[in-house]
């Protein structure tokens, strides 16, 4: 556990020293929010949640890519694979909570007649899922640019696809639209339930992808044998 938290602490230190990136992470969801605030308040909530998800998954992508060169050395130093990716996730989840809080307060003050609890749930689930998506992409695609294009595609599709369609459920942030509808349009509870199930399944699948990808990349090579 100490090792996991050490990785988390160092990852957080690295993240907080990238001030320019942090500023952009903080501003980007605001742009999403303001883009539709004038004509459709509900849509602005959906967009800010997606903006947070995108910002966090991007941060995770760059964190994962930056750590690639160091992680084999950390494995040699005695870290287990799961300690490395869990440590990064803990750091990113912490950052996610810190980034989401101001936006929740903004919605709380700026919007009326919405289910605030459900909005908090969307944000929390976004904080959980987004870093997993970013780390999974970074684990599968070694270059930042390719990863960025994938994340752009995911968020772009999430915005333009009809959330009621079956295909859109394959997207990782579909739950934000579903629970968002529950929170904004006061639809019945099944919207919330479907969103929660989707987030749970997405989290499980992405965690599996991250664990398998990290395990393969940082595996002990078969030619090497440590003799005690």
């Amino acid at each position, binding site marked *: 556990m100490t090792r996991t938290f050490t990785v988390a602490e160092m990852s957080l230190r690295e993240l907080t020293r990238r001030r320019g990136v942090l500023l952009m992470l903080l501003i980007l969801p605001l742009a999403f929010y303001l883009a539709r605030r004038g004509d459709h308040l509900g849509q602005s909530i959906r967009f800010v949640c997606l903006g947070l998800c995108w910002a966090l998954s991007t941060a995770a992508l760059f964190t994962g890519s930056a750590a690639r060169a160091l992680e084999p*050395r950390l494995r*040699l130093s005695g870290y287990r694979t799961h300690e490395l990716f869990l440590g990064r996730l803990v750091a990113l989840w912490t950052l996610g909570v810190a980034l989401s809080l101001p936006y929740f307060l903004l919605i709380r003050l700026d919007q009326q007649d919405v289910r605030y609890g459900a909005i908090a749930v969307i944000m929390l689930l976004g904080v959980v899922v987004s870093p997993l998506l970013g780390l999974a992409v970074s684990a599968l695609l070694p270059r930042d640019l390719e990863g960025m294009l994938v994340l752009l595609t995911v968020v772009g599709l999430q915005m333009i696809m009809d959330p009621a369609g079956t295909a859109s459920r394959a997207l990782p942030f579909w739950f934000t639209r579903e629970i968002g509808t529950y929170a904004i349009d006061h639809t019945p509870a099944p919207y919330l339930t479907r969103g929660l199930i989707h987030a749970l399944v997405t989290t499980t699948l992405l965690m599996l992808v991250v664990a398998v990808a990290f395990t393969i990349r940082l595996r002990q090579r078969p*030619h*090497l*044998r440590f003799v005690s």
Partner: protein
Amino acid sequence: MRPEIWLAALSDELRRHGVGPDLAGHVVAEAAAHLRDSGEQPLRAFGAPAAYAAAVADSVGGPVAAARPAGPVRLRAVDIVKRYGRRPVLAGVSLTVRAGQVAAVVGANGSGKSTFLRICAGLAGADGGRVEVHGTIGYCPQAGGTADFLRADEHFALIGAGRGIRRGEALRAGAHAAAALDWRPGPQQSRHLSGGTRQKLNLVLAALGDPDVLLLDEPYQGFDRGTYLDFWHEVWRWRDEGRAVVVVTHLLNQLDRVDVVLDLSASTAGAAA
């Protein structure tokens, strides 16, 4: 003194001190790169050419190894094969290093020295052969291997935690090892360190926690004269402490000062024990 003149004088002095042309060329190239990167005056960075050449000639291998009983095997690489596509890089390379020995892996550019070391560390796969490590490994890469936005003490804490060392102890050990390389870690993030200082950090990290086997891939890149000497003194100290040290190097003209030499330049196959 202009750098070109100083470098020419250094080249002459190295030859005068009996340093072979390969080594001399490498030393001059390293010095030129350092001067270019740092913008320092050569006399200020390295001192007089004659003195620097004498130091290089004197230090390249360190003290002659006294005859000692061989310790237990720490690293055994047997028949290592590696190909990049159809191009064979290593064909049946073997190396055995015991506790209290220093092995030098030498060879021309592209002969597979770094690849061999990465295979020994398990950082690269092999197409054939096996590696046995008796104990723990410390690995120092030629470049990279550090986190740009972390300070040196944070690196010590991070690597130390992996090795099961308490933070305070890791910080003390890191600072102590850094002092042996004439470096006092400050609050700078590693991205702000010079190339040589970053390599000092790399070296300290490799040795943190006293691993049984040290794999060092040309760790002296960017070192100034004093640090270069300090580095070899550290190597001898590690050897005397009973550790097995493998150094990938060009700088080797006195082979009697290391215990094992693996030369990969002649062919893709080699063996040393």
